[in-house]
């Protein structure tokens, strides 16, 4: 049913629709409303689940790891420093190939202390082995969450659904909450083959010596790559039942014959789309929303960039001392392309800086006049810095 809902409440409702057996989370801004709303659903009797209150994110992640390893459908959510505190367990969850879903309400990592949105938290978990899906709006945050369980349970890989903190979590907008019976059809009860069961004991998390470690890592990598069609399939099947999709691995908008493309992840996509509509000329330009960042959708991205001469990669995080994270990866992928586009890479909207409507025009203008750098923090005002830091 279509409703005007705050993003966090919509996500909590979506979690309930997935009928999780165990939810464990520790509140942290801007994820707090998700956990609060889940606990309200439980208190009101609208969600039957084992809701575990814990004393830290490390414990939250450990509880859901244990629960999922025992075969339960498990959920947690966090942000920023909370994700950092979970980090050790997140690598373990992925390495143990235990399926579950986590919502990352994206927020900057300190220092400097900052509670606002960017994507440095999920980007820091880039190599953790979690599938990462980025959401352009709250509808996608709801839909991707439901899809995430299907993907996770088919691939036996954990899925992190990344939604921009505040910008999505705290925004009330029109969101369609799927019907329970359809979600039940889409997401049948899950039986985890490798579940820990006292009546049929197996070992999980054994010490793996150098004799086997390389093979385990190879198979983890292969499993991630093999998950790509499952992610596409989950979105296609979702569309059959619910009449909408999230674009599969990536979404495109604009001129099919584009020679200029702007690629981004998350909610900046909407602001760039609105900026594009307000822009005087939209010819030969398109926008790409990279929904699936891990596993990296190399083939689909290459196809989307066919004919593109200039690509601007817009991201909400950076790797100090290198530059862009997504931009650098895309450059690497394109190194084998026949006619690769020039890649320009900018970080914008760090630590909650507002991304204005004219950002689309400013990026195109910078491209046109050649002022766009190989990498820059595009919206930084360098005049506020001492000469030696510029």
């Amino acid at each position, binding site marked *: 049913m279509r*409703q*005007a809902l*705050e993003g966090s409440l919509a996500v909590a409702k979506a979690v309930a629709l997935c009928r999780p057996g165990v939810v464990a989370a520790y509140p942290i801004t*801007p994820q707090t409303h998700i956990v609060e709303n889940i606990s309200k659903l439980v208190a009101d009797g609208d969600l039957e689940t084992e809701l575990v209150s814990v004393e830290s994110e490390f414990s939250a992640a450990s509880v859901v790891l244990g629960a999922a390893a025992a075969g339960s459908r498990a959920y947690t959510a966090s942000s920023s420093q909370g994700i950092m505190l979970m980090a050790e367990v997140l690598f373990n969850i992925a390495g143990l190939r235990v399926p579950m879903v986590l919502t990352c309400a994206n927020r900057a990592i300190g220092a400097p202390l900052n*509670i*606002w949105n960017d994507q440095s938290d999920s980007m820091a978990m880039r190599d953790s082995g979690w599938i990462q899906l980025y959401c352009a709006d709250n509808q996608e945050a709801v839909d991707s969450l439901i899809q995430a369980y299907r993907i996770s349970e088919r691939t036996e890989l954990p899925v992190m659904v990344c939604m921009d903190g*505040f*910008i*999505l979590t*705290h*925004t*009330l*907008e*029109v969101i369609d909450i799927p019907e329970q019976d359809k979600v039940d059809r889409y997401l049948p009860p899950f039986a985890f083959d490798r579940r820990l069961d006292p009546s049929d004991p197996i070992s999980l998390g054994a010490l793996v010596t150098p004799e086997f470690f390389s093979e385990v890592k190879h198979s983890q990598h292969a499993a991630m790559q093999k998950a790509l069609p499952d992610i596409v399939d989950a979105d296609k099947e979702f569309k059959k039942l619910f009449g909408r999709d999230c674009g599969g691995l990536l979404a495109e908008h604009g001129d099919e014959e584009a020679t200029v493309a702007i690629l981004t992840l998350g*909610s900046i996509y*909407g*602001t760039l*789309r*609105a*900026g594009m*509509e307000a822009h005087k000329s939209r010819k030969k330009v398109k926008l790409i929303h990279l929904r699936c960042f891990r596993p990296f959708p190399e083939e689909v991205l290459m196809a989307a960039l066919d004919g593109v001469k200039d690509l601007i990669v817009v991201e909400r995080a950076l790797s100090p001392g290198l530059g862009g994270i997504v931009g650098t990866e895309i450059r690497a992928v394109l190194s084998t392309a026949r006619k690769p586009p020039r890649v320009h890479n900018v970080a914008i909207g760090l630590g*909650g800086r*507002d*991304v*204005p*409507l004219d950002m689309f025009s400013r990026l195109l203008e910078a491209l046109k006049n050649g002022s766009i750098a190989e990498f820059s923090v595009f919206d930084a005002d360098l005049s506020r810095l001492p000469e030696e830091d510029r």
Partner: protein
Amino acid sequence: MMEIRIHGRGGQGNVVAAYLLASAAFEDGRYCQAFPAFGAERRGAPVVAFVRVSETPILQRNEVRTPSFMIIQDETLLHEKGLTDGLKPDGGILINSPLSSEEISERHGAKMTAIPATQMAIDNVGRPVPNVALLSAFLELTGILPHGALKKALDERFSGHLLDNNLRLAHQAAKAVTKDLWKEKADAASA
């Protein structure tokens, strides 16, 4: 698309005001978006929230810099430099003040419409929360949504005595302003 900026202080229900207005727009069949300018909120600190109302899906998520209308829940905020910056030249300001519209406009050198929303809230709800009174007055001034839409939004959020009291408050606040005074401005902003 119409853009509205709501200023208040922590504890005055600023985010609730934004959510209620957007929800009312949804109840009337529009697309809507409402979000706070996120800060380290605490009681009494200046806070800002944004609302967009549109006939078509709303794509952008940037802060509202050039609102058509401003709702100011606390007149002491006018001492903040640049509070009304960005207001469209033909825009309107609705303010919570015990002063008359003429008095407050003269005092601050800008045209505003005032209602004593805090007192109205105390009288009807028993708490100094001016948001519902201001929203109701705003709908009466602009005619952008029927009062029934706000009633539905209130009904989603409140129940029992609290709902009845808020509905009475909304009714009283609507009568305190001139109906459709800003209708032309609102029609121009929505176009």
